[in-house]
């Protein structure tokens, strides 16, 4: 065969044919390398975010790369039927769906101290009996500080602590804010938000816009919030303890179930769906879509939320993404974080089992 190949190469155009033979797979490999970003190491990928979180918060193997300090909760969601004209998602009907949730502090430090002004989050996995699961991660701030994934990465990098002072470098953040007036406005809204005493009486907002689709196929732009039944009280002062927010929540759940109403806000004409830094005007139509009841706290150590990623694009039929770019970025970054932490050695959470049932190891 080798002699035949030599013969064929010696023919007129033989080398051209050999070149064509190599070019087709070669070009395909090149296209693949380009698509993978191997030739453009500066491209923003989910891996970039892993490096950014590591740089900002330090390495914390086994923990979520963001919202690292948390506690599992369980309970149920009961639809009121009021949202069924807007969305055909089965969980909005008057049925009870089990919930596995997680309260957390924003940020990648799993052992950070609790403090009143730190951003609190609630993640939910709502599992109706016959499919149509809905996951979300919602926060106690009124708007998101940035418009897209690139700005979020830059914002995180600008907020990273200086190795000498252990505080963010004001010059670096100043430079970012100078180019991002929308972040300045959003941070002003964040700063002005009323703080409550803890997780139990806090309101958690979707921040991002989504689309409800009803049985007739009509699409409606929405945002939503979990609004507590528990009355607001003033935040604790200094010296409440480094895990006081979580301990208070555990104590409240030991007293009895906690309830929130899922309040869906319907977007009006001209309301921004693609920009989570802009709040929707007050007075928009609101629907009480159902009640979330949480009745049990469990440590992440062996708890039911540990092995769950609260990917905001796990949506039932009847809820769809909007043109807001943040949920897709969160979904991609959460997937990478979930893969990394699930392959890392097991960890011990700041809020261990003993915090929930003293005496139990």
């Amino acid at each position, binding site marked *: *065969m080798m002699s*035949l*190949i030599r013969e*064929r*190469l010696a023919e007129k155009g*033989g080398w051209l*044919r*050999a070149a*064509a*033979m*190599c070019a*087709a*797979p070669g070009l*395909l*490999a090149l*296209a*693949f390398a380009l*698509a*993978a*970003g191997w030739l453009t190491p500066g*491209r*923003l*990928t*989910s*891996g*970039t*975010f892993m490096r950014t979180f590591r740089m900002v918060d330090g390495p914390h193997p086994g923990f979520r790369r963001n919202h690292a300090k948390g506690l599992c909760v369980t309970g149920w969601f009961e639809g009121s039927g009021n949202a069924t004209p807007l969305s055909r998602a089965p969980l909005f009907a008057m049925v009870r769906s089990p919930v596995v949730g997680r309260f957390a502090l924003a940020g990648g430090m799993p052992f950070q101290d609790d403090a009143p002004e730190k951003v609190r989050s609630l993640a939910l996995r709502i599992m109706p009996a016959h*499919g*149509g*699961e809905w996951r979300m991660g919602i926060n106690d701030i009124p708007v998101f500080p940035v418009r897209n*994934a690139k700005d979020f990465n830059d914002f995180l990098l600008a907020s990273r602590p200086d190795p000498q002072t252990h505080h963010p470098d004001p010059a670096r953040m100043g430079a970012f804010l100078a180019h991002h007036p929308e972040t300045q406005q959003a941070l002003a809204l964040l700063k002005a938000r009323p703080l409550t005493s803890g997780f139990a009486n806090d309101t958690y907002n979707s921040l991002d816009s989504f689309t409800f689709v009803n049985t007739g196929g009509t699409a409606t732009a929405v945002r939503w919030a979990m609004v507590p039944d528990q009355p607001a009280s003033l935040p604790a002062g200094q010296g409440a303890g480094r895990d006081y927010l979580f301990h208070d929540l555990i104590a409240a759940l030991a007293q009895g179930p906690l309830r929130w109403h899922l309040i869906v806000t319907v977007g009006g004409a001209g309301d921004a769906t693609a920009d989570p830094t802009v709040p929707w005007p007050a007075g928009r139509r609101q629907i009480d879509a159902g009640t979330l009841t949480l009745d049990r706290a469990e440590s992440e150590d062996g708890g039911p939320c*540990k*092995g*769950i*990623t609260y*990917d905001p*694009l*796990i949506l039932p*039929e009847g809820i769809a*993404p909007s*043109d807001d*770019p943040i*949920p*897709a*970025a969160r*979904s*991609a*970054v959460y*997937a*990478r974080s*979930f*893969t*990394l932490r*699930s*392959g890392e050695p097991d960890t011990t959470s700041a809020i261990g089992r003993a915090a929930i049932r003293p005496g139990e190891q």
Partner: protein
Amino acid sequence: MRPVEHFPLFARILHWLMAAMILTMLFVGIVMVTTVGPAYHQLVDLHRPLGICILALALVRLVNRLLIRVPPLPDTLPPALRTAARLSHIVLYALMIALPLVGWGMLSAGAYPVAMWPGFALPPILPHDPALFALLRHLHTWLALILFGVVLVHLAAALMHGLLLRDDVLPSMTSGPPADARKKQDA
């Protein structure tokens, strides 16, 4: 000289359809796992049902392959290349079946709904186990990269047969028997 022996039409359709699907899948996959852009969820929504389609077609194709007569390789091919051709086809079939199964198993172990289209998800095939999810997730990537490598070698080999050796191997998959030969066969 004996006439070219072709793959039956059904085998050729399966081959070229799956070639397009697998290449699409590999590119969708590699873009999907890196991008943080708005296309991310659309790519994920395409990747999962396309993978299950490939799994179903690969099983049909495996049965078909065992039933049909495969056109023989030319006698001039050295034994080492013959073995390489045989092995590469076994690897291709194994990966066409294993990759979607690993993907399905990985989503199951990660407690992700294996969503096919709005309102329909496949049942999990493995228990919820995050460590297993991580393992299968890495395996999925490595198997995909191996599949892409074997596809490139397969393409190069096909072109070597078609452009340099100019034997019967490439035509057996690119074309059917000419019309007069078919008539002769029918008679």
